[in-house]
C-alpha cells in the first residue's frame, strides 16, 4: 500500500500536506461515509483518485463511477434513503445534468445523510462557463457550505455530513477550482470505529417519498422547516465567524466591515495584512440559508460594510433585503462593475476594488505596466499519435475537397481541441452530448449544406443517446462521427460503459444497430483512406449516418504499458 493510502486510512489523528480534494476524502472517512458515486470532471477527479488508491479490502467506502451526474445523484440518494451516509461529486456543469433529480431531494428524508459535492469554476479554468451554483442550491432548497481552503474543506465537510444526518437533509458542498487544488498542512482527527451497517433500512410509511401534485406541499413544508433549523445552526456554526486581524477600531470616524466567503475571504485577509487597517471580516462558510440575526448584528456594528463575493450578486441581494427588512442604516457597498461579476478575486484585485471605496486603508496603486515582451501563446493540443488527430485530418481533407461549406458541430472531450488550428473541425459547442441535437436543428429545412457532428464514447452514454435517438427517429440529414477511444480521456482516463473496465462492455456499434441506425460504418482512425471513403458514403447517404472512428487513447495506452512494465519489474525483483 502506498504511504498516501496508509495515511488516508490511519485510525489516529495526524497532520499532513493535502490538496483540498484529498482532504475531502479523509473527511469522508472520518464521517463514516459508505457510498460515493460520481461522474468525472475538473476540478474534482482527484477525489476519486484518493479513494481508489486505498486497497479495496481496506476501503470502507463503496465507490463507483456513474453513467452521468444524474445517475450518480440518484445512486447516492438511493444509498442515503437506505440509511447509508452518501456523497455524490461532479464538476459545476454536472449539476445541470443532475438537477432533474436533485431538485426533489430536500423534500425527502435522506435518512443516512447525503452530501452533494460540486467543483464550481470561477474563472472558467476548465469549463464552458462560470455558472454560480449557489443559485441552484437555493432552488434545490439545500444548505450551502463553502470552504475556502483544504483545512476548511476537511472541517466543514465533517460539519456538513453531521448536519445532513441529523436533519436528513442533503447538503450542497460547494468547492471551487482553487480550493480543490490548493495544498496546505491539514490537521486531521482520528477515524472513529464505525460499524458500517449495510442493512437496507428503506422504509416508506405512505407517500413521503412520492412528491406528486398535492403530495408536494407537506413535503415542501418539511423542507422549509429543515432549512429553518439550518438557519439557526448557522448562528453558532464555526464556519461563520468574525475575524478582526488588526483589531476593530473606527477609521476616520467610520467603523468598516466586510462580508465575504470562500477564497475571496482569504484574499481580503491578505489585503488586510498588507494594509494593517482595523477592518472586521464576517466570513460566511454557510452561505445559504443566511441567519438574519447574524447579518444584522454585523451590519449594525459598522457604518460601512462591503459585500465581497465571487461571481453573481447573491449575498449582495439577500443581505440588502435583510438590511431593508430590519431598517438597518449601515451603508452597504457592493462591486460596481459588470467586470467584477466575472473571474476570481485574487488579493490584488480585491485591493484595487477596495481602494476605490476606502483609499485611506488601501492606497490606490498604479496598475502594473503590461510587460513589453511578446510571448508566444501555447494552446493545449491533442497528444502525438492521438486517433482523434488522424480522424480530423482525414475528415478535414475530405470536406475541403468534396463537401465545402459543410457545417461541423463539436462536442466536449479531448476532441474539442479539433476545433482549433490546424484542423478546425467542429465550430459550435455547448456542452457534453449537445452535438446530435444541435446538428439535427442545423439540418432542418437545409438541403444545401451538409452537417457533420462529433461525439466521444464516454459522452455517447452520458448525454449523447437522446440526441442520437432523435436523429434516428427523424432520419435527419446528419453524419455523426463517434470518436471511440475506450476511455473518458479529457478528465484523466476514467472508465465508462464501453471501456470494458466496469462489467461487460456495452458495445457502441451494437447499441446503434439496435436503435435502428441504417447507415453504420466503423474503421480505425489511423486508416485515413478508408475513413474518408466511409465519410463520403455517409455524407452522400440521405438521412442519418454514423461513422465510428476508433483508436485507443495513446496516452492511456503508453501509461498502461509503463505501469505493466514497472509491475513486472517489481514482481521479478520480489521473486529473486
Amino acid at each position, binding site marked *: 500500500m502506498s504511504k498516501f493510502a496508509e495515511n488516508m486510512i490511519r485510525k489516529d489523528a495526524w497532520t499532513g*500536506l493535502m490538496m483540498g480534494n484529498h482532504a475531502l476524502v479523509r473527511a469522508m472517512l472520518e464521517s463514516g461515509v459508505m457510498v460515493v458515486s460520481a461522474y468525472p470532471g475538473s476540478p474534482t477527479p482527484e477525489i476519486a483518485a484518493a479513494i481508489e488508491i486505498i486497497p479495496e479490502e481496506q476501503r470502507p467506502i463503496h465507490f463507483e463511477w456513474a453513467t452521468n451526474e444524474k445517475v450518480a445523484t440518484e445512486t447516492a440518494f438511493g444509498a442515503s434513503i437506505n440509511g447509508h451516509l452518501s456523497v455524490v461529486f461532479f464538476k459545476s456543469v454536472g449539476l445541470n445534468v443532475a438537477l432533474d433529480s436533485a431538485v426533489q431531494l430536500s423534500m425527502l428524508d435522506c435518512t443516512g445523510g447525503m452530501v452533494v459535492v460540486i467543483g464550481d469554476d470561477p474563472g472558467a479554468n476548465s469549463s464552458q462557463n462560470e455558472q454560480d451554483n449557489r443559485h441552484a442550491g437555493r432552488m434545490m432548497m439545500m444548505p450551502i457550505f463553502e470552504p475556502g481552503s483544504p483545512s476548511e474543506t476537511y472541517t466543514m465537510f465533517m460539519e456538513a455530513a453531521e448536519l445532513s444526518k441529523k436533519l436528513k437533509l442533503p447538503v450542497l458542498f460547494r468547492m471551487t477550482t482553487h480550493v480543490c487544488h490548493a*495544498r496546505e*498542512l491539514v490537521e486531521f482527527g482520528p477515524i472513529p470505529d464505525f460499524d458500517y451497517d449495510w442493512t437496507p433500512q428503506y422504509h416508506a410509511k405512505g407517500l413521503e417519498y412520492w412528491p406528486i401534485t398535492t403530495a408536494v406541499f407537506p413535503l415542501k413544508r418539511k423542507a422549509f422547516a429543515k432549512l429553518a433549523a439550518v438557519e439557526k445552526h448557522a448562528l453558532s456554526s464555526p464556519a461563520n465567524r468574525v475575524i478582526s486581524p488588526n483589531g476593530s477600531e473606527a477609521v476616520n470616524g467610520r467603523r468598516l466591515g466586510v462580508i465575504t466567503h470562500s477564497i475571496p475571504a482569504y484574499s481580503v485577509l491578505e489585503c488586510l495584512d498588507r494594509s494593517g487597517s482595523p477592518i472586521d471580516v464576517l466570513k460566511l462558510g454557510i452561505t445559504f440559508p443566511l441567519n438574519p440575526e447574524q447579518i444584522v448584528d454585523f451590519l449594525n456594528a459598522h457604518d460601512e460594510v462591503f459585500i465581497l463575493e465571487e461571481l453573481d450578486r447573491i449575498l449582495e441581494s439577500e443581505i440588502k433585503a435583510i438590511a431593508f427588512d430590519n431598517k438597518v442604516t449601515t451603508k452597504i457597498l457592493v462591486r460596481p462593475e459588470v467586470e467584477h461579476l466575472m473571474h476570481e478575486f485574487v488579493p490584488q484585485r480585491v485591493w484595487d476594488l477596495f481602494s476605490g471605496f476606502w483609499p485611506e486603508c488601501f492606497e490606490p496603486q498604479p496598475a502594473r505596466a503590461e510587460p513589453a515582451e511578446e510571448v508566444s*501563446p*501555447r*494552446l493545449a493540443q491533442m*497528444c502525438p499519435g492521438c486517433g482523434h488527430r488522424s480522424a480530423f485530418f482525414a475528415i478535414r481533407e475530405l470536406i475541403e475537397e468534396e463537401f465545402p461549406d459543410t457545417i461541423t458541430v463539436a462536442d466536449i472531450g479531448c476532441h474539442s481541441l479539433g476545433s482549433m*488550428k*490546424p484542423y478546425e473541425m467542429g465550430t459550435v459547442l455547448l456542452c457534453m452530448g449537445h452535438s446530435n441535437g444541435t446538428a439535427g436543428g442545423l439540418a432542418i429545412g437545409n438541403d444545401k449544406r451538409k452537417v457533420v457532428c462529433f461525439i466521444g464514447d464516454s459522452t455517447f452514454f452520458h448525454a449523447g443517446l437522446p440526441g442520437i435517438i432523435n436523429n434516428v427517429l427523424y432520419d435527419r440529414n446528419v453524419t455523426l462521427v463517434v470518436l471511440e477511444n475506450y476511455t473518458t480521456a*479529457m478528465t484523466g482516463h476514467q472508465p465508462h460503459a464501453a471501456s470494458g473496465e466496469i462489467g461487460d462492455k456495452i458495445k457502441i456499434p451494437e447499441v446503434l444497430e439496435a436503435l435502428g441506425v441504417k447507415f453504420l460504418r466503423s474503421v480505425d482512425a489511423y486508416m485515413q483512406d478508408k475513413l474518408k471513403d466511409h465519410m463520403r458514403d455517409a455524407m452522400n447517404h440521405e438521412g442519418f449516418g454514423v461513422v465510428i472512428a476508433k483508436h485507443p487513447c495513446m496516452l492511456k495506452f503508453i501509461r498502461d504499458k509503463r505501469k505493466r512494465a514497472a509491475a513486472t519489474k517489481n514482481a521479478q525483483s520480489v521473486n529473486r
Partner: protein
Amino acid sequence: MKNYNIFICGVGGQGIGLLSEVLIQSCLAAGYAVLGVDTHGLAQRGGIVVSHLRIGTRDKLFTPRITPGEADLIVGLERLEAYRGIVNYMRDGGSCIYYDAEQQPIHVRMGMTDYPAISELEQAVAERHGKLERVFIEDLPDVRMQNTAVLGRIASFELVEGVTGDIIREQLLEISPAGARDANQRVFEQAMAART
C-alpha cells in the same frame, strides 16, 4: 520573514507535480509554513502547467496564488514557459532557474510567432535586475529527469535559508519511485555540481 514565492512552470507531462512536491516537503522539513496550488486540467495535452508555492510563517500566508510581478524565484522546465514566467511573474531582483528544454507550440510551428532565444530570457531577466541560471545536461538518461536536474541546481543555492541541498536531496529520494531513485540521485548530483 517576508514570504518567499516560487512560481513553477512548464508543459504538461514534464513532472511539475513531483518538482513542487519535493520543494514543498523540503520547506516543511526546514520548518516553514507553505501554501501551494497547481493548475490541472488539460495537462496531458502539451498545455501550460504551473504551480504556485508561497513559503513563510503561518500567520502571514493567506492565499496560495502569487500576484504577477511578485515571484522571488521562477522555476521553468521549458524555455518558452520560463520566459513567460519571467515576463509575467518575476519580481524586480528575482531569479530564474530553468531547464533549457524546447517544446515548440503550434503557433511557432505554424510560423505565427517566434520561439524565444536564450538571449531574450537573459535580457528580460536583466531588465528586472534578476539572475538567470540555465540548466542543461547533454547526456540526460531520460527526458523525464529534467525536473530532477532543476532540483539539483536549486539545491546548490540555498535560496531560502535553511532549505539546504541535503534537505532537498533527502525529500527527492523519499518521493522518487524506488526504481528511479539511483538514476535520480546521479542526475541531481550532476546538476548540483554544474552550478555556474
